[in-house]
């Protein structure tokens, strides 16, 4: 059952992605991008990544859609008609894609519990986190403690983006603030 849902969802996502890529109306594209994110959030749930799904729903379907719409309202709604097909880009994409597909041929099968990923580092988190950290959500344990430093980096990334946006656009909101 899940497999079928899996396949259906993925196919739908591909269709959506193509549509987003080809669509001239940027508002529509942004909305459909939100749906795309939402579908991927469902995918994440199916793949047992509930935290990721939650975040993707909040960020992909929420924040980025709002930001995209905001940007479009400040700039333009319509994409210009593209006359020529970009052969070079297509070539690059095809080469990259074939390389990736080629790479999958030796990959462990999807869901294989004996794949290397499950054997080496992660097993310890699952086995010992209860004793070492005593928090049911292993993702939180890993996120905030085992790999807490990555998360510090992540907060810094967000901080950087915030500073960047304020630097690039913020002087206007501060000016209003002073009035």
């Amino acid at each position: 059952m899940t497999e079928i849902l899996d396949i259906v969802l993925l196919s739908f996502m591909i269709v959506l992605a193509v549509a987003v890529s080809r669509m001239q109306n940027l508002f529509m594209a942004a909305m459909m991008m939100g749906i795309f994110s939402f579908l991927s959030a469902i995918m994440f749930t199916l793949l047992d990544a509930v935290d990721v799904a939650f975040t993707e729903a909040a960020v992909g379907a929420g924040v980025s859609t709002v930001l995209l719409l905001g940007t479009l309202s400040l700039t333009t709604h319509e994409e210009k008609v593209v006359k020529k097909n970009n052969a070079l880009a297509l070539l690059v994409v095809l080469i990259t894609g074939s390389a990736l597909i080629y790479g999958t041929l030796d990959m462990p099968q999807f869901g294989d519990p004996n794949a290397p990923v499950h054997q080496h580092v992660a097993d310890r988190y699952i086995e010992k986190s209860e004793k070492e950290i005593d928090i049911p959500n292993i993702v939180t344990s890993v996120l905030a403690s085992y790999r807490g430093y990555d998360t510090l980096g992540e907060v810094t990334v967000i901080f950087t983006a915030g500073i960047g946006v304020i630097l690039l656009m913020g002087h206007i909101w501060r000016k209003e603030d002073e009035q």
Partner: protein
Amino acid sequence: MIDMHLPILLIVVPLVSAPLCVLLRQKTLVWAFASLVCVASLGIASMLLIRVLEEGVISYAIGGWIAPWGIEYRVDTINAFVLLLVSIIAAVLMFFALPSVADEISGKQHYLFYTAYLLCFTGLMGIAITGDAFNVFVFLEISSLSSYTLIALGRDRRALTASYQYLIMGTLGATFIVIGIGLMYMMTGTLNMFDLSERLPAMFETRTAMVAFAFLTVGMLIKLAMFPMHMWLPNAYCYAPSLVTAFLAATATKVSIYVFLRFTFTVWGAEFVFEKLKLDAFLIPLSLIGIYVASLSAIYQTNIKRLLAYSSVAQIGYMMLGIGFVSITGLTGGIVHLFNHALMKAALFLSVGCAVLRLGSSDLADWKGLGRRMPVTMAAFVLAGLSLIGVPLTVGFVSKWYLILAALEKGWWPIALLALLSSLLAVIYVWRVVEVAYFQKADDDSNVKEAPLMMQISMWVLTGATLYFGIQTDLTVNVAQRAAGLLLGVTP
């Protein structure tokens, strides 16, 4: 106690200082604080290098979780050297920053500017010090996002498009790296570099491993602006504020090259990369073509910052050429050039910055007669330019010497000849600027003063360094040789 925590302090001190800058707000205060932080980092980085040279590899388990379960900082000769380089540049540039930023950035934005500057510094240092593959990506993004912001602050509107272009290319590169890391993780189950290097050999025969390496490499080559993936670099360097250009030119691509070295030599190992995949057969020709194409492009530029940016692409070719030789001498040449080029390019961009401050332009046509109008600045430009050409007794010569030696060791004298002849192109593009500045009369007689003393201090410290390290090569070459030995797994 401090001694034990040196690796983490090196990153956390600037990282914590960035938000503190936001809280401080007052612009001179923020500048003073940021300078203090950079100098402190320089101190820590020097202590770290000394300790590494004495004791060998230093490992630091963040959060107390030992690798591979936690994130490890792992410092050896190579990254200690890169860390020192980045902190030297960051600290020296702070003198230049005060007048230059005051001139180019609106006063209300100063504290945020320094915040972004410190973040960029943190990111670069974080990339260089970490022993965890995914952590590289996180800090790569810190440095990238802050560089996009810093570049976009240039006065020309083209700074915005340059920044955008860089953002797209940079993110693509980073995503490629993430794909590469993901596939590596998929095959080994670990993210720790040292652990990866032990577990990857079992996977060398799989197609997935090859693809993982390919993606990682392409991503890194984009980030380090290897020809023909360099298109983002000239615009970014050209339109960014002077300080940013100098800082990025001296550090960002260098750190990316370090990442390349780390992944190819330490994680994957020279045997897989160069004997099985024959990456050198691809790297050497590409480097040479890159050197020539970029140098020729530099010759035809009418904007000096852009000219120097193209020259950077060419110089990256030299570094990659040295790496492509896969020998102690070649790697020594590459690593020494990494250090040397940082010094000279920073010095060059600083002298351009001084001129821009007074002239308001880096167009070649506006530089007529600058030799008389700003003799001190132009003198620094000429000296650093000579270094770029590779004139003896400057750092440029030292790196060139090792590169040529490496080519000859392999018996590839045509490559040696090509590399040498390419430096003539550097003669041409440097000389074009010199000719305009010294041999043409200024269009107007308006008085142009020399740049403020603060800017000249930075400029001359770096120019002096290009001369000093061109004569006193013990430190740089020894460290580079040890690093090369480490990368190839032989003790010299």
